[in-house]
């Protein structure tokens, strides 16, 4: 009774996000907060449903609890379908034995039974750490028009940055001729965005072959793509234009949050025909107090702002006491900033408590090593000073230790 789904999306959400530590101490990277209202995974999930793809496998492994809860039945993204919808896919025990996911290709391989239920013609491989708006359906259309085995979304990057990416060289028809991971001397400026569309049968064949190879890292970029290219498969690039940000590090996370403060944003969060969906909690509209000062910032629901907020992104249920000043910072949900506290150039995680007249960080200096990071549940006492560039992690009870 397999009804066909033309295209199924598989979202790799297992990444540990160690470069985002301590923000990822308790949550998987795709569950991290972004842009005042969202979590990172809202972007690929919203892109899927807006592109007409209503079947999404979310492959989890590391600290999936909060992510599982957040995705739940998929309803916020209209992915609570009777047939299709969002499905969490953790590793599991089989009769013959048990395996955690190894590389990205192995994770997809282990979920062949999931995909086959939908008898798909195409599979879209996504990752859970990018902020962007993209119509995957257009990419799928190009894939079909090219009669391709694999299509890889690419972004033009400045030549000087190209060596940080997987770089694709193509002929004039966008047919891929070469692929190099982080080349020292890049031959092109087309960088892979880690978004692939495969023709399902071809992908399955290569995944099975890759599994048999005991020396393989079972990774798409390192193993599967090169193998396909070596065999002369029809592989094409799809040129993406628009805002795209990998939020894999603290500086890039800070920066992409700040990008949302532009008046003409490259990424339009308010486009009614391409909504970014998110899971809601019941919170009242935010309140701006009698002495509040705001300037160039984003403020989410549930906040109570009595102090000054400038060039900052403030998530839900944050309270800012009288006389407190927040500048150039990202403040995640349920955090409280005491009266008279000063927060500069910082990323403050959720449930943090900053005491009265405490000082966090130093004014913005365009030096990302000076970003101050406070992890979940950190408590900073009244009048305390947290040095610029520190990174503190909290425990459940709010004590803290320095991690870098």
């Amino acid at each position, binding site marked *: 009774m397999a009804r066909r789904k033309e295209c199924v999306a598989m979202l790799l959400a297992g990444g540990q996000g160690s470069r985002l530590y301590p923000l990822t101490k308790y949550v998987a990277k795709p569950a991290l907060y972004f842009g*005042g209202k969202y979590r990172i995974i809202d972007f690929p999930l919203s892109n899927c449903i807006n592109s007409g793809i209503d079947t999404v496998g979310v492959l989890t492994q590391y600290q999936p609890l909060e992510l599982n809860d957040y995705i739940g039945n998929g309803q916020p993204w209209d992915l609570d379908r009777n047939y299709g919808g969002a499905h969490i896919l953790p590793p599991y025990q089989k009769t013959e034995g048990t395996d955690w996911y190894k590389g990205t290709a192995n994770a997809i391989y282990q979920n062949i039974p999931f995909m086959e239920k939908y008898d798909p013609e195409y599979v879209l491989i996504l990752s859970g750490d990018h902020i962007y708006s993209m119509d995957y359906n257009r990419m799928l259309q190009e894939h079909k028009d090219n009669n391709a085995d694999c299509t890889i979304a690419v972004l033009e990057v400045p030549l000087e940055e190209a060596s940080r990416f997987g770089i694709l060289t193509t002929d004039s028809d966008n047919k891929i001729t070469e692929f190099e991971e982080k080349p020292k001397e890049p031959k092109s400026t087309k960088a892979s965005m880690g978004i692939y569309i495969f023709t399902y049968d071809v992908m399955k064949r290569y995944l099975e072959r890759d599994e048999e190879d005991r020396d393989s890292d079972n990774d798409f970029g390192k193993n599967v793509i090169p193998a396909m290219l070596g065999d002369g498969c029809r592989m094409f690039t799809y040129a993406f234009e628009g805002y795209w940000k990998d939020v894999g590090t603290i500086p890039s996370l800070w920066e992409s949050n700040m990008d949302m403060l532009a008046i003409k944003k490259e990424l339009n969060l308010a486009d009614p025909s391409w*909504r970014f969906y998110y899971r809601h909690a019941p*919170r009242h509209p935010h309140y701006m107090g009698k002495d509040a000062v705001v300037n160039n910032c984003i403020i989410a629901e549930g906040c109570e702002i009595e102090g000054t907020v400038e060039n900052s992104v403030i998530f839900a249920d944050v309270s800012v006491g009288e006389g407190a000043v927040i500048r150039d910072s990202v403040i995640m949900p349920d955090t409280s900033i005491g009266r008279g506290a000063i927060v500069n150039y910082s990323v403050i995680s959720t449930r943090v408590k900053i005491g009265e007249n405490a000082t966090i960080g130093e004014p913005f200096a365009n030096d990302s090593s000076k970003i101050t990071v406070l992890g979940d549940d950190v408590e900073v006492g009244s009048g305390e000073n947290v040095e610029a560039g520190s990174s503190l992690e909290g425990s459940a009870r709010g004590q803290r230790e320095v991690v870098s």
Partner: protein
Amino acid sequence: MKSMGIVFSNIHDQSLPELTRRRTIASVPIAARYRMIDFVLSSLANSKVTEIGIITKTKYHSLMQHVGSGKDWDLDRKNGGITTIAPFVDAQSGPLYTNRLEAMINARSYIESSKADLVILADCDLLANVHYNEIIDEHLESGADVTAAYKKIKFVRKIDRNVQELEVDDEGKVTGVRHHNECTGSMNYGMNIYVMSRQMLVGILNEAQTYGFKSFSKDVLPRLLRTYSIHGYEFKGYIRSISVLDEYFKANMDVLDRDIRDEIFDNKDFPVFTHVLDSPPTQYGPKAQVKNSLIADGCYINGVVENSVLFRGVRVDEGASVKNCVILNDNIIENGASLDHVVTDKRVLVSRERRLSGCEGYPFFIGWGESL
């Protein structure tokens, strides 16, 4: 002990004509992102009452869009959940019902087929976070046949409108019901919230039909007082009846008070849910000056906002000034415009340099979709 709720969405429409021209009182927007019915539905759901009939009569399109399947209140249930009871007009049916009693007679098959033990009746005209579970508990403890909720209110000014006053003795027994055409002084203000057994309500409806009674509070309640015991539940929390435009304005202003905000919205076991719209967060521009205001999601503010309540999707341009206002969804206040003591319905455009001003006790109302 299972309870069901009956919510009247149209009762009181006539008292707030400005905002109920195209909607029921139940769907009147309030407090920057809610509609009046949110408070009743949320609180019933929080009280574990998950079988709720919403009685509608006219203009219920926006209400149905807002409530939908009840998902936002976790009330989309296989058993029970939300049922909209509209007058399913057919050629044979008479005119539309005009009051609570006729409305319930129309809904009788719904009420009769329920398996609930108790029924809660409630209107949608009160801004309050009523804990229905407490009323139910007190009803059961008192052993009364009916429980009616009231609030001790002292009116500082005389207000023209119909109110029901309950006479309650020291034991909490209701001994009389009086109707006034104006509010003045102290009184036990009847909240039109009743709890009774479902069987009793069915009996009342049968009797009402037999004798041709017209009004629940004027015909039925006095009769009940003679034969049955009616307990008075004193509600002690914040309450504001959205009866006339100025009261509507004041209700919105009340929410600027931290204590009232905390009481209504910040009880963790009694959160207030509303229909989800996926608005982006609100953004403040470099020229924003915002003080003592409640601001919903999805706004863009680059002007002056003071002592005001702004609903979702409002734009206040640089140089515009909004003071002592209630601005409903998707308004645009252009550069240089200035508003003071104004209530705007949805989708209003106030053009550059336009100056509009009402005054205390008499806000200026601007209708749906106007461009000024």
